[in-house]
């Protein structure tokens, strides 16, 4: 009978509820862990470059936890349905990538690559639109993470001057403007990536102002 169609759908949706619970739980825990790591990383703004490594070391446990929960997600999700649920965890993965980007800059003064993200978070970044056969971190999530880096860098430039470190802002200035040139190559559509990209210019402006202030006072 026709009504049976709906009864069957009702059952199917019922079953999916437990899957949703698993997904939401993993995401909630990841979010909490990211917040903790983020809080710890803010210390880096009040310490000189030499002590940056202590800060990044302190969040290594959080990365282990995040890796574990992404692993849980990957177990729950079948690859063909990856994009069906993808919008749920995309925000927390963006934050995780941002943590990786900031950590790598603090430790090694360079841009975190997809390989770094894979090392820290345990899953590949899908840089080439490959068909999804395993759980991946999307290119957009990686790029969102890098965009977050600009904001940290502009704050870092300002805070470095406060602790009398004039070398760091110079490095940040060169680094940020290179990275921005790279970003400007992208053809973005009107989505969240584009909106966040638009905010980069304010960070660049702040970084340049720090440079100017130092120059004008002959501090560099």
């Amino acid at each position: 009978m026709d009504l049976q169609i709906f009864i069957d759908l009702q059952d199917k949706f019922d079953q999916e509820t437990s899957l949703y619970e698993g997904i939401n739980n993993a995401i909630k825990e990841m979010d909490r862990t990211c917040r903790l790591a983020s809080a710890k990383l803010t210390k880096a703004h009040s310490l000189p470059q030499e002590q940056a490594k202590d800060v990044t070391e302190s969040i290594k446990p959080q990365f282990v936890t995040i890796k574990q929960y992404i692993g849980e997600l990957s177990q729950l999700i079948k690859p063909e349905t990856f994009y069906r649920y993808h919008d749920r965890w995309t925000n927390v993965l963006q934050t995780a990538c941002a943590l990786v980007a900031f950590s790598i800059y603090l430790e090694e003064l360079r841009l975190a690559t997809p390989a770094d993200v894979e090392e820290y978070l345990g899953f590949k970044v899908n840089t080439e639109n490959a068909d999804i056969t395993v759980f991946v971190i999307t290119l957009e999530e990686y790029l969102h993470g890098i965009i977050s880096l600009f904001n940290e860098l502009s704050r870092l430039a300002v805070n470095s001057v406060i602790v009398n470190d004039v070398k760091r802002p110079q490095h940040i200035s060169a680094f940020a403007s290179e990275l921005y040139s790279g970003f400007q190559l992208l053809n973005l559509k009107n989505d969240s990536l584009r909106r966040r990209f638009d905010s980069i210019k304010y960070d660049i402006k702040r970084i340049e102002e720090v440079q100017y202030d130092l120059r004008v006072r002959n501090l560099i």
Partner: protein
Amino acid sequence: MEPRKQQVMTTFLAYRNTLDAHYDQRERVIKCSRDITALSKKMVFSLLRITQDSPEKVFKDVEFKHNQVLELFAKMSKEMQGSNAMKYNRQATPGIQEYIEAVGLWRFLQYNELITKKQVLESLTIESDGNATPLVSVTDEDYLLGISDLPGEVNRYCINSIGKGDREAVSKCLAFLRMLKEGVSLVLSVRKYNNLEKKVPVLNSSLEKIEKAFYSMTIRECEMENINPATISPSGIAAECNMDTS
């Protein structure tokens, strides 16, 4: 250019290519979806002419248009392989839903049944090299949203049928919409689903319109039974049969 900057530019050029390819593919899906929507709507218009033309003529015409829609689906199918099916589902779903509405109406008019998801997939299956797989995949949500749009078109068919005095057709429409309403309510009882919720007011108002129209039809038939034609003048009959189908 220094090596580090060169490195950055090279990597971001590669990212640009990846993103461009993705956006272009998404655009192609959107275009296919629009075309499918337009052609599916034409299928519906053809089907609604069943109250004026013969069923054979209508079904033949719909069959022809259906084959054209299948060509569009074949085109869209190229962009929706593997994980891309879900990736671009948001862009494809308007067309898919409109199509389900069209074949759903067809099924109702021809067989007085609610089309199942399986039957939708079968209608999207073409034989090629001995393989028979549907051209695109259809999610449960696509299916539900597609059939929940049927009340509007069934309503139109029903009102046209009333104009022809086709009591049986009206009765079928009424049963069909009642079943749809019950089914949709069942599904909404387990899951919060905004897109489906939005269809409920339309469903309810369609059902109400048909019930009212059926009521008018029934009342008028009772009136006609009570009239003895021999005692009325021609102008009297015209007054009695004053049609009010508002």
